[in-house]
Structure formats: structure tokens, C-alpha cells
């Protein structure tokens, strides 16, 4: 077979497509001839790291992905989890790191657009969003510009689309100076019997193109996102897509309306690698061939080549296989919403992916092999070097009150209000907990008491020190944040951000983190149902901190029994549930060391998963029974920061009684895992609290009474009292002052 081809395939052209010589040889062997230019583009789109997971697949397969509530695990546009009453939550997290660094507003906005589309492609109406953002050092020349652009881009897209942002993370570290991370999460609600999938069924059925027109934006985007950055980064701007949330909103409404007519057999959004990836996926999953006629594709620019059309990443587009008898009805829906609707091809029985353009066949490839035969690597990896533990006597000293005030006003701990007030956090009218607490919570529309909790977590400095423990900690922290609202953690999505996997030490980080994530998910019964891998987050040979972000989803049967972080009232007993006997012991890799002493040493804290599970289950029970009046898990900055956050959220102070035989620094700033602060409205000498302690003891959980709420100061034992007002001022002050600076 020969296909017309004007462009000579040279080794340089192959390399420019991100394909290695042996990968190209495999292509030639597979199709028995030299590929056309369009075919080379198609292979590069399907076989890049972003689409093929070629470096990570071997390890992703080890993650637990099933459970009694899991309806759909990884492999579709998003994971689907049963929440009872015939309803399901559909969710996923995905990165848009490379484009957001090159062009922050459009990069972050289209990241939102992509993840929202993944959710409504499955028939779910998006109800909540989160964003996990990581930027370079605050003092780096690009950081302010990137923060400002990314936040505006997310807001510009999400606000116009109309989904509440209920949570997220913002973190700064010099290791992200050359590669920021923008991980976008979206969740939607659907009926369990009305979930839509990408698998095509039936021969000779119309393949229909819907949504926005195809332009030249984003050509080669997925390939760009599968390479590290060098000094030529500004030349990559044309590979960034341009977002149109107005079209996305209409596409949402039109798709849901169309799905309700029963016309849709299969649906796939056009995300990375656009028309190529969506068409191949629908065909390959259904054991069918696909024939596309590019002359029928709606375009917004003239003289587009087949290559450009196949690789365009223009946004807000969908591909569907429709029941032919419903085509007219389907067309009417899209015309109502003033969106393009064009039959651009058909399903075939020959398992070929054929592309016609201006009367020529410009591609004719084995459709299954495009996905199934993609390279899969068992890349060499080395066991990470773990830092030495801190010596027991190595406790740098600072007055506890001074340290706390400094941390509350630091870039790591300060309030993210400047960010989240640019996001619509209450649209749809169901937001029960907005950003600033342990997890975002929305009620489930149409149900009297049910609610969903969302959180996004990872501690990259722990992952750098110990990828395995860091991976465990990311999952445990997400599970803990959901539990702290009273929610039952259901399932998670993972967004694995790493450097260049061709370097064995980076691959070692990925392997260690995935092993840790898998272990924690198994013990905590918290399966991974969707996810995304972003590698090559590296500039001129320097990688980011390993950042496996975990997005967690939990279910509250009754939101009237939900916990918040603010102290509920004065004179309530404060318990530190899950505490070691010495309350706090672990200073290695802590925020106290890093941000007050510039030290990044020591081991990462470890997570005892069995203890974590018992403690969380106990805490959740206390919340649901109404015993707990407020709850907050401890993380960055340890006990002191946790108490300060509870005080700031309520305006109520607290008096804490020290342990006299343990260093105040370790007690207040140690980052031991698996701990929750809980307040209860019980007599500390009474029978009820004695019963609570007896139950805790029987479970092997230490839950000491450490103090009492009340007053306008936070008094940490012998330390100087700090006015809650001053803590709040420090906490609120950093972000606006940094952005104005």
C-alpha cells in the first residue's frame, strides 16, 4: 500500500516528533512501510508519554482500583463511584503543567476546561472543582506573574462555566521555578444507569463531531508536554490551546440534553491529541475501525492540512457515535445551542484507522495497534537515597509564640483567601464548606441530607526525602481530611507529577511513590479510580520535587452532622486524637525546620496505616454521633499551627497545658502523622468522656485532653500568649502583601 506523501520522513523529523529511533523502527515494522507525514503525527500523538503512559504503565497496574462502590476505575474519561440512591460521583484530576508555565492564563483555563469535559463526557453534571497549584520560590522573578495568571485563568474558565471551586492547594518551592504544577480536579453527579462510555458499538454508524470548530491551536501539545523544557521555551507558545468557557458551557448543556434523548452510543471528548486520540480510542475499545473524512470537519481557519487537523488541540470539542435514526433529533439539540454538528465519518469492520482528506487517503493504520502496541518501558530505577535522621539533641530553638506567628504569616501556611476569592465558591447553591477548611463539602442536590467532601493533598518535601513514605502520606492525608469533616472516604484520583523518567533516580521516585500510594490505598480501602501522569517536569536537567497529588472524595450521609475546623464555643475540651505519648516527636522535613531555619534535613515522618485507619474511624464516629463539636487534622506546622487555624476560624482562643518532660518545639511543631484535634462539649471529669477514653484505649488510640477553648488568646503552655487577632492578621496578611509587592 502506498499513500500520497509530500514530506520526506527524515531522522530529524522523527526526533522532532518526540519519537526515539527504535520507536520509529517499530512503527515501520508494524505498518510494513514508511509512514506518511500525517501518520507520523498520529503515532507521535498516540505514543508520547502523556497519552501512552509508556514509562508509568508497569507501575500504575499495581494500584488498587476496585472496591464495592467502584463502578468504573481508570481507563475511561473519569472514575465513577456509587454514592447510593441510584447516584454516582464521577471524578478525575489532571495536570496542565507545561502549558501553564508557557502561557499561564490559557494554560490553566484550558486545564479546567479539559477536566470538566472529562466529567460531563460521562454524562455527569459537574458540581465541584479543586486545583492543586505549585509555584517557584516567592522571590523568583516569574512567580508573581505565574500565580496571577494561573489563578485568573482558572477563575476565568471555571466561573464562566459555572462550577464551584471548593478546595485545593497552593504551595511555593524553588524546585518549581522552571516547572510549575497546575493539577485540576472536577467531580460531577450522574445516575448510575446513565453513565456514558467511549466504547463504540455497531458497524456503519455515523461518527459525529460536536462543539467548537477546529483551528491550529495546540498542534503538538501532548508531544510538547512529554518533553522537558530548555532555553527555547518561548517558541512553544503556539502549542498552548486557547479556552472558550462560553462554548464549554453550551457544550455541557447540549451534551446532557442529547444524552437524555437516547441518541448517544459512545462519546469521547477531544483532549490531548484531539481528533486522533478520541477517534482511535472509540474504535479500538469497540473492536471497530474508524474512517474519518477531514473535509467534513468544521474548521475556523482555511488551508488546514490533514496533519494539523489530526493534531489540533482546539478546545470544547466532542466526538460521538450516534444512533442514525436519532441524528435529526441530535442535530436539533446542537443547533439550539448554536454549536457545530457534523457527521465526519463512520465505524467500519476492518479495524483500520483511515483518514481521508481532499480525495486522498492520508492515513491507513491498524487501529488497535496504535494503542495496544504503544511502547511500554520498564525503565531502570534506583532506590532513593534517604537522608539521615536528625540527632535527638538537634532541636533548633525559637520562642514558641514567635515561631508560630512567623509560620502563620509564611508563604506555606498563610491563608489562600487571595486565591480562592477569585473563584466562584458558591455557585449552584450547594456549597456547605468552602475553601479554608480540611475539605470542601457540597450537598447532593435532590437529596435531603447527603453530601460529598473533596480534598487534594500531597507533601512534596516528604516525597523527596522518602518517596514511599511520601506516597503513603499523601493518601493518608487526603483520607484524614475527608474524615475530619465526618465523611467516609470513598475513592481517590492520582495526579503523578515527576521529572524525567529516563533518569533512574527520578524513576526511583515514581516507583517508590506508587508503591506507597498503593499500600496506603489498600489498607485504608480507598481505591484509585482515575488519574493522570505528568513526567518530564524538568528544566535544563533539574527536576521538580516528586509530587504525586491525591484528590480524595468522601460521602456524608447527613450534612447536619458535619464537622468544621473552627472552635464551636468557649470552655470545650480539646483532645489530640491519635497522638503519640509525647504528643509530637518528629521534626525531620518539618515546616519548622525548613521555613524558620532553612533546613531541609531529617527523615520524612512515617505513617502507621493500621493506626491511621483505627484513629480515623474513631474520629468519624465521634463526629457522626455529635460528640465532636469541631475537628481539624494536623499537617504542616504540627499542633501549634492546627490550634491556631481552629482559633482563627472561630475567633475563640484556647489554653493548652504542656507536657513538661517533652521539648515544646517537638510538641508544638513536630509533624507526626495520624493526629486530629477534636473538641467535645463534655465534662472532663464526667462519665461520658471517661467512656470515650476507655473506647480509645481499647482501640490502642491515645486521645489526651490537652487544653480548653476560650478567651481571645492562644496560650501554648509556658509560651507567651498570642492574641487570636494577631494570628489572624499574620495569616491573612502574607498573600495580598506578596502579590502587591
Amino acid at each position, binding site marked *: 500500500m502506498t499513500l500520497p506523501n509530500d514530506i520526506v520522513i527524515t531522522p530529524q523529523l522523527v526526533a522532532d516528533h518526540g519519537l526515539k529511533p527504535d520507536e520509529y523502527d517499530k512503527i515501520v515494522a508494524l505498518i510494513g512501510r514508511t509512514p506518511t507525514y500525517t501518520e507520523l503525527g498520529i503515532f507521535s500523538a498516540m505514543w508520547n508519554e502523556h497519552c501512552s503512559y509508556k514509562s508509568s504503565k508497569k507501575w500504575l497496574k499495581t494500584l488498587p482500583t476496585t472496591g464495592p462502590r467502584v463502578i468504573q476505575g481508570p481507563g475511561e474519561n473519569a472514575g465513577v463511584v456509587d454514592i447510593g440512591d441510584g447516584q454516582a460521583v464521577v471524578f478525575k484530576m489532571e495536570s496542565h503543567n507545561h502549558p501553564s508555565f508557557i502561557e499561564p492564563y490559557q494554560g490553566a483555563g484550558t486545564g479546567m476546561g479539559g477536566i470538566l469535559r472529562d466529567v460531563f463526557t460521562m454524562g455527569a453534571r459537574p458540581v465541584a472543582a479543586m486545583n492543586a497549584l505549585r509555584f517557584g520560590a516567592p522571590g523568583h522573578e516569574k512567580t508573581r506573574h505565574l500565580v496571577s495568571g494561573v489563578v*485568573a485563568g482558572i*477563575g*476565568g474558565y471555571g*466561573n*464562566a*462555566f*459555572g462550577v464551584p471551586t471548593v478546595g485545593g492547594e497552593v504551595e511555593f518551592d524553588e524546585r518549581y521555578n522552571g516547572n510549575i504544577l497546575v493539577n485540576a480536579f472536577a467531580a460531577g453527579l450522574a445516575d448510575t444507569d446513565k453513565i456514558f462510555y467511549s466504547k463504540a458499538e455497531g458497524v456503519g454508524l455515523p461518527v459525529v463531531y460536536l462543539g467548537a470548530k477546529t483551528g491550529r491551536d495546540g498542534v503538538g501539545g501532548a508531544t510538547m508536554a512529554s518533553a522537558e523544557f530548555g532555553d527555547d521555551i518561548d517558541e512553544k507558545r503556539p502549542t498552548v490551546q486557547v479556552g*472558550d*468557557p*462560553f*462554548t464549554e*458551557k*453550551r457544550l455541557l448543556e447540549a451534551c446532557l440534553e442529547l444524552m437524555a434523548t437516547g441518541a448517544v452510543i459512545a462519546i469521547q471528548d477531544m483532549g490531548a491529541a484531539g481528533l486522533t486520540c478520541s477517534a482511535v480510542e472509540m474504535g479500538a475499545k469497540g473492536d471497530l475501525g474508524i474512517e474519518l473524512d477531514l473535509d467534513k470537519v468544521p474548521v475556523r481557519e482555511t488551508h488546514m492540512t490533514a496533519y494539523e487537523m489530526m493534531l489540533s488541540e482546539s478546545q470544547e470539542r466532542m466526538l460521538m457515535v450516534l444512533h442514525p435514526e436519532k441524528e435529526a433529533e441530535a442535530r436539533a439539540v446542537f443547533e*439550539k*445551542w*448554536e454549536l457545530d454538528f457534523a457527521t465526519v465519518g463512520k465505524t467500519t469492520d476492518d479495524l483500520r484507522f483511515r483518514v481521508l482528506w481532499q480525495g486522498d487517503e492520508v492515513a491507513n493504520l491498524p487501529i488497535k495497534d496504535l494503542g495496544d502496541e504503544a511502547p511500554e518501558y520498564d525503565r531502570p530505577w534506583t532506590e532513593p537515597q534517604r537522608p539521615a535522621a536528625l540527632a535527638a539533641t538537634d532541636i533548633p530553638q525559637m520562642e514558641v509564640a514567635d515561631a508560630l506567628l512567623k509560620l502563620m504569616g509564611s508563604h506555606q501556611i498563610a491563608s489562600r483567601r487571595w486565591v*480562592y*476569592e*477569585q*473563584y*466562584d*465558591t*458558591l*455557585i*449552584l*447553591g*450547594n456549597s*456547605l464548606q468552602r475553601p479554608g477548611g480540611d475539605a470542601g463539602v457540597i*450537598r447532593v442536590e435532590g437529596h435531603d441530607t447527603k453530601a460529598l467532601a473533596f480534598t487534594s493533598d500531597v507533601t512534596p518535601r516528604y516525597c523527596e526525602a522518602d518517596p514511599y513514605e511520601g506516597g503513603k502520606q499523601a493518601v493518608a492525608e487526603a483520607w484524614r481530611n475527608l474524615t475530619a469533616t465526618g465523611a467516609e472516604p470513598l475513592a481517590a484520583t492520582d495526579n503523578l507529577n515527576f521529572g524525567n523518567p529516563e533518569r533512574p533516580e527520578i524513576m526511583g521516585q515514581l516507583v517508590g511513590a506508587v508503591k506507597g500510594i498503593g499500600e496506603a490505598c489498600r489498607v485504608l480501602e480507598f481505591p484509585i479510580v482515575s488519574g493522570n501522569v505528568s513526567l518530564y517536569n524538568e528544566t535544563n536537567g533539574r527536576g521538580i520535587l516528586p509530587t504525586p497529588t491525591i484528590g480524595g472524595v468522601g460521602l456524608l450521609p447527613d*450534612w447536619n452532622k458535619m464537622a468544621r475546623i473552627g472552635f464551636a464555643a468557649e470552655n470545650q475540651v480539646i483532645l489530640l486524637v491519635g497522638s503519640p505519648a509525647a504528643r509530637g516527636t518528629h521534626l525531620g522535613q518539618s515546616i519548622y525546620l525548613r521555613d524558620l531555619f532553612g533546613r531541609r534535613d531529617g527523615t520524612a515522618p512515617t505513617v502507621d496505616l493500621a493506626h491511621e485507619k483505627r484513629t480515623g474511624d474513631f474520629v468519624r464516629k465521634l463526629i457522626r454521633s455529635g460528640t465532636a463539636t469541631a475537628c481539624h487534622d494536623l499537617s504542616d506546622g504540627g499542633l501549634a499551627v492546627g490550634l491556631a487555624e481552629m482559633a482563627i476560624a472561630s475567633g475563640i482562643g484556647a489554653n493548652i497545658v504542656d507536657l513538661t518532660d517533652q521539648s515544646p518545639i517537638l510538641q508544638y511543631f513536630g509533624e507526626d502523622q495520624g493526629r486530629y484535634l477534636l473538641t467535645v462539649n463534655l465534662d472532663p471529669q464526667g462519665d461520658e468522656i471517661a467512656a470515650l477514653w476507655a473506647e480509645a484505649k481499647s482501640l490502642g488510640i491515645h486521645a489526651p485532653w490537652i487544653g480548653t477553648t476560650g478567651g481571645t488568646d492562644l496560650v501554648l503552655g509556658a509560651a507567651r500568649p498570642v492574641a487570636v487577632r494577631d494570628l489572624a492578621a499574620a495569616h491573612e496578611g502574607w498573600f495580598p502583601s506578596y502579590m502587591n509587592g
Partner: protein
Amino acid sequence: MKSAVIVFPGLNRDRDMIAALTKISGTAPQVVWHQDADLPDVDLVVIPGGFSYGDYLRCGAIAARSPIMDKLRERAAQGVKVLGVCNGFQILIEAGLLPGALMRNKSLKFVCREVKLEVVNAATDFTRGYKEGQIIRCPVAHHDGNYFADADTIARLEGNGQVAFRYAEGTNPNGSINDIAGIFNEQKNVLGLMPHPENLIESAHGGSDGRALFSGLLGQAA
């Protein structure tokens, strides 16, 4: 009282508004698509918030030129009550049903937070559920809520009791002139406001200060 909600492509607080009207009056409003030929026979027409036509031109400018707006102008002239919230307020201004302009927020940023509002004129069908001078909580979520009008218009609005709500206690989120958050037309049957009372009507919202606006209008107990 019967109500209708007009939906333009790109509006996205229609669901919030429909839920509020339904919960407070017990009856769902009729939903009117912007291409529908006519408005149903109702006592209240609401244009909810969002980003009609993406706000790619001036906010509200394209929707204001939609044929359904001619029908709305006719009904308003006949005394039918019209409420525009956020993008709905912008559309009513662009349609000439209310005076002035809504400019980009002074911060140049989108802002979503809770503010305090003073009820400036409680002697209207819209605001009779409140007391004059009452301070209520209400969320805002907008990018272009910075109300402006020339000095003569402002004097007329202030003099005629056409200022409905003012941002109070230093919470003006957008730099609007005289802290104006919402205004009436001269006849007081058209109200436009930037804040979202529909997002503060029940305990799940953390308060119900927005409820009286609808219950006053719909003739239901607050």
C-alpha cells in the same frame, strides 16, 4: 404569584435562581429560552446571573439586544416586576431598563465573598420583607460590578429612593459609586443588583438573609 426566569446561553446561576424561587414560593418558575417568541403571563420575570455570550463583548450587551428583551420592556412598562441579578443586572442596564453602567471591579479581579448590605429603600414590593436601614449579609460573585453613573443620574437615584441596596460596613467589593449595590427604575417595578440573595436562603447556605427579597415579592412568609 407566578414567575418566569429568562435563560440566555452562558447564564449559569439559573439553577440557583430556579431553586430559590421554587423553595420559597412552592412553585417552580416557568423557564423561558431566549429564542422563545413571547413571555408567559406572569407577575415576576427574573434574569439570573452568569456570563451571557461569555461576556466577550461588554457584559450583558449581546443578551440585551435579543428579541425577548423587547417583550420584557413591554411587560415592564405595564408594571410587571422585573428582577436582574448580577449578569441579569448588567443585561437590564444594557437594555436601558435601568440607568448607569457596571464597570470592571476596581481590583480588576473577579471577587466571590460575603458582604454586608444596607437596605436603603424598604418601601417597595421587592424590599418590603426588610426594614429600612437594616444590614443584611449577602454573597457577591462578579468581575464587573463597579456601578457608575453621571452626577445628575446619581442625584436623581438618591433623591427618588431608587437606591435599593448599598454595600455597608466598608465591604464594597468593587468600588461602586456611593457604595451602590442595587437600584430600582423610577416606577420601582424593576430591580437590578450585583449580590446574590438566591445563594443565602437556607441553613445549608449558612444563613437566610436573602430570603426576604423573594418572600416579600412572592407573598410568602419569610
